[in-house]
């Protein structure tokens, strides 16, 4: 019996903890968890995933503290709230636990930043920049509108700013439109915007809550080809629309890598002291007609 236990311990060279603000019920985090599991199997390490069932900052911080108390060989954590995580993570780093950030970085200035080893995730601003560039590759819009469903949301505003900065450089008029999270309002307001500025030929949406009504509008009003949609995020409705040519492209953040890579990095760090510098970007990755079939298949397999 004792022998079995010893063998089991020996089988796992290291134990890593992954703590995120997203629970197992969220399909987005299900993909991350799969990445963690696959990497742990491949490298023969133990990886424990912790996340609150429903979003709760307090519970999340409790889980982070619980993970630190276990003195793991490595800790992977989303910097959902840099202020609340500052004390526990600095303590962990002082204890000698290597920390890797995923999904949300510590966006404070460098002198206040939690000194984690590196960040694995998407840059929201770049997502906007790449979205605009991909649209320019398709055609040069006369006028563009950015449908924002939650004004003031830091991530969405950063995406919008990325789009605006690129288009402004090309002197293309671009404006944000507050479409709300309600689909009927979103559709009507976009329709009114198109009536007000009939030269609008590009709609950027910043998430499914914008993409779905925009797709509906273009289909209902038979504007396919006349008004092109560029989306961010992945749903089956969006991939279907890409196949039909209603949406030109969407941006994916490849969150599988946000689970897989930190385990690889921590393993290499413990083993050889190797670690990438600063940010490792898993997105923006562009999904369009050229790769939508593969993407769809990998969605079904749980890799996206």
């Amino acid at each position, binding site marked *: 019996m004792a022998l079995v236990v010893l063998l089991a311990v020996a089988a796992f060279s290291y134990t890593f903890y992954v703590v995120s603000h997203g629970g197992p019920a969220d399909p987005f985090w299900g993909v991350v968890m799969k990445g963690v599991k696959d990497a742990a199997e491949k490298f023969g390490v133990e990886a424990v995933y912790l996340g609150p069932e429903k979003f709760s900052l307090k519970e999340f911080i409790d889980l982070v503290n619980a993970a630190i108390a276990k003195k793991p060989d490595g800790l992977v954590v989303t910097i959902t709230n840099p202020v609340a995580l500052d004390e526990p993570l600095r303590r962990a780093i002082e204890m000698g636990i290597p920390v890797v950030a995923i999904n949300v970085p510590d966006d404070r200035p460098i002198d206040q930043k939690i000194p984690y080893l590196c960040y694995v995730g998407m840059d929201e601003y770049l997502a906007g920049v790449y979205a605009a560039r991909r649209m320019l590759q398709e055609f040069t819009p006369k006028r563009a509108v950015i449908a924002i469903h939650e004004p003031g949301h830091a991530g969405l505003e950063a995406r919008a700013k990325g789009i605006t900065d690129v288009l402004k450089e090309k002197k293309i008029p671009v404006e944000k439109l*507050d479409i709300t999270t309600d*689909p*009927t*309002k979103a559709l*009507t307001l976009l*329709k009114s915007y198109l*009536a*007000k500025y009939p030269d609008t030929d590009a709609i950027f949406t910043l998430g499914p809550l914008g993409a779905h009504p925009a797709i509906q509008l273009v289909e209902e009003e038979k504007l396919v080809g006349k008004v092109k949609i560029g989306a961010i995020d992945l*749903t089956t409705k969006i991939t279907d629309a890409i196949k039909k040519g209603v949406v030109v492209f969407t941006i994916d953040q490849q969150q599988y890598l946000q689970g897989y890579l930190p385990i690889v990095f921590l393993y290499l760090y413990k083993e050889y002291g190797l670690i990438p510098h600063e940010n490792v970007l898993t997105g923006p990755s562009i999904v369009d007609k050229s790769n939508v079939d593969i993407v769809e298949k990998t969605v079904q397999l749980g890799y996206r």
Partner: protein
Amino acid sequence: MTKEKVILESLRIKEFGAIVGVAIFLVMFSLLSNRFLTAENLFNTLTMAAELGIISIGVAMLIISGEFDLSVGSVFAVAPMVFATMINANLNPYFSLLAALLVCVGIGVVNGTVTLKTGIPSFITTLGMMMFWRGILLAVTGGFPIILSRRVDMLQYLGGRVVGGLRYSAIWFLILAFVFWIVLEKTRFGNWVFATGGNPGAARALGISTDRVKLTNFIFSSVLAGFSGLTTFARFRLVDPTFGQELELEAIASAVMGGTLLTGGYGSVVGASIGAFMISMVRNGLVLAGAPAYWYRAFIGVILIVAAVINARIRKKVAG
């Protein structure tokens, strides 16, 4: 009739403030945009107003009888969620529709019963229900939309196109506003609603079962909210767990703009409908006028307060 009498008579119309408001904005936006005063835009506005308007009807009825319902925004999402899940499980569409509406009846009954039996304010009961159902929606869907997986012809008559930008949801809105106007203004039940909200003690002394009146209105409020959610679902064929957020407050705003008193006993279903139309008109009008996108919320806030003040003044004047 003297001129003064005419003015006083028109002030007696409960919807007077809302009608004047709509007229003012109509003129204002027509001057700001030549695309505003077109049939197409009127249809768009009415369609956009429909989803809020249908909810406002029930909310106004309930407020007049002296209670609140904050759970309507969540119910707006629960009904289509039940419907979509059942349809995707290959159940009969009519049966699914009935089941979805019955769930709403159930929520209304729980709202009413808990409020009336325990004596806690409906503000709290329905706030709790709002959170509870929103939580259930998030937990069940994991945050992702449920997409209708097959064609259901019936949905055409809930949210399909009638002509141009006019949708069946707008037709339903007009029909329901008319039906509930009759219920509130022309039936005995309507009188009971006013009495229950205005002076519950006197109402009970007259033999009105105020609890039953309130319970009925809780059910109306829930069912109308669910029905409104179904018309939206019928158009988009998918339902997000965020569906209907903040609609509960917009519905209260519509009722207030339409002349309904938050303290109960006074108000109008038609007024609430006009209030919903006004909110929709302003939102749409600002876009057509090319106003910066982020100003809308501030604008509506001001209108709400101004409308409430004007309505209060009018009532004072009429009451002498």
